[in-house]
């Protein structure tokens, strides 16, 4: 029972981490909470679903398609809803309200056009499970966890080693200075949104496979946001650690205490952390840019 709960928690945590990285990445460079990320994830799931059920593609193509779609959507979102605000140096709160507007807009757009039906992905691994130390783990969960860690690892490597990655990290430190050094900040921000959106599309697909696809599934991303806050907004490592911690703790609470208390607990943690430790476990201290 204990090990089983732990494994479930880890696989939930892996998906949380994947989504939390998107929040953190954008927060680190633009210093605001991009609530539209949840909708990007949701639409990524729908794209994956469309590719899988309409065209009958294999898992690899589905994941690639959802990543590309999520990335493009996030770039478009930035272009239309944030860029003007960014150029005007608007307070980060305005960006957040705009993001909230996007999220409400996209979510209900899906309601109106696709409908509120719940869709299931076709089975990719026909419910196969492997037994490990007396507890069973589904192959899809293992695959999702491994692929999530791989994607986050690749992102970390990209940020640490590549020339563009260095530019992004420079932008995180000081956007103005970075642009004075000859970096095209608009392109830089677009790239960050592309990366975050691609991870979002990936997370959406895995979430859709694990649960179901429906318009309000972006709500689960509130949890991912909490995970990002636990780890410290803006920190990549923090997002992973926060995601795993939240996933495991939540699973244990719903297994041993009650599944109702689980959500209350998560939101209480969120408020407590914002009040007592707004920089989370690994975040840098950030003042509000006025």
């Amino acid at each position: 029972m204990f090990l089983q709960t732990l494994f479930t928690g880890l696989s939930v945590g892996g998906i949380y981490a994947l989504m939390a990285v998107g929040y953190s990445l954008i927060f680190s460079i633009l210093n605001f909470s991009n609530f539209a990320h949840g909708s990007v994830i949701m639409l990524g799931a729908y794209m994956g679903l469309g590719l899988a059920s309409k065209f009958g593609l294999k898992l690899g193509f589905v994941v690639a398609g959802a990543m590309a779609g999520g990335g493009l959507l996030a770039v478009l979102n930035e272009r239309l809803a944030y860029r003007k605000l960014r150029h005007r140096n608007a307070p980060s709160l305005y960006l957040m309200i705009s993001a909230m507007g996007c999220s409400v807009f996209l979510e209900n757009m899906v309601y109106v056009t696709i409908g509120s039906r719940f869709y299931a992905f076709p089975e990719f691994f026909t419910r196969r499970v492997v037994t490990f130390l007396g507890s069973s783990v589904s192959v899809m969960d293992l695959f999702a966890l491994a692929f999530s860690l791989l994607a986050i690892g690749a992102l970390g490597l990209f940020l640490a080693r590549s020339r563009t990655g260095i530019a992004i990290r420079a932008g995180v430190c000081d956007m103005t200075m970075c642009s004075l050094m000859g970096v095209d900040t608009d392109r830089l921000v677009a790239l960050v949104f592309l990366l975050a959106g691609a991870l979002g599309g990936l997370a959406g697909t895995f979430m859709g496979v694990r649960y179901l696809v429906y318009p309000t599934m972006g709500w689960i991303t509130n949890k991912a946001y909490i995970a990002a806050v636990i780890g410290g907004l803006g920190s990549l490592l923090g997002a992973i650690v926060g995601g795993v911690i939240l996933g495991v703790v939540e699973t244990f609470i719903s297994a041993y205490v009650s599944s109702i208390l689980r959500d209350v607990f998560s939101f209480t943690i969120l408020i407590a952390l914002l009040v007592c430790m707004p920089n989370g476990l690994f975040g840098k201290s950030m003042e509000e840019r006025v």
Partner: protein
Amino acid sequence: MSYILSITTLACINMIAVLGLAIFTGFTGLFSFGHAAFMGIGAYVSAILTYYYDVPFFLALACGVAASSAASLIIGVPTLRARLRSDYFAIAILGFGEALRVILENLSITNGARGLPGIAPYTTLPVVLLCLGLCVIVARNFLRSRYGAACIAVREDPVAAEMSGIHLFRTRLLSLALSAAYCGLSGGLLAHYLSFIQPVMFTLVQSTQILAAVIAGGLGSISGPLVASFLFVALPEALRVAQMWRLVAYGLILVLIMLFRPQGLLGHQEISRLFKRPAGEGH
């Protein structure tokens, strides 16, 4: 006729909540994605009192108002004292609202997610108009008082306001409690008008609708948000737009206003000012 009456009643109930958030967001400068939670508390407390305990309507309403004000202290005291970044504060209130919804959905006295049916329909248009009128008068007087001036000073520049001796924490908390009281009243009236309430009615969607009205109407105006909120309720009804399309529009409005006119349609002005030129001294 009864159709127009019911739209007007709903619009006026909504206006009370919008007025509350206008005091908090428009005049004190803090944003909230969770004020629907205060509506929910007002609705549930007053409905439970009249439903199970046969408490007189106005007493129940008053209890609902008191309860949502008290609840606002629970979330307001720690978050405002810690002086969170303004976006963290908005998120903290959002978390509070979501947590409240989960609790409401799992209590037995609230009948869980199925909702509370058969609440006595005490709310009538005259009652709503009376409440709305009182609320507008209270809001006007509050904003013209020392406290209101302190709120506006805090909105304009927290640091300068504090330097001139305004207690930031107390001013913000007072504004939050007052706005929560308005939302509580609105919720109580709504519950006794629809005679059915459900936790889903008081979530982020409702919060967004109130916030969209305040932002669209103008930060720092009372009449602007009132007009905007009336239009938000009446226009889609009149045009027979489906609920989903309304939400699509609210989302779009938030984005467009932020992009093109962040001060809202009226900005810092009142409607009466538009007809009275040249403008007198600033408020």
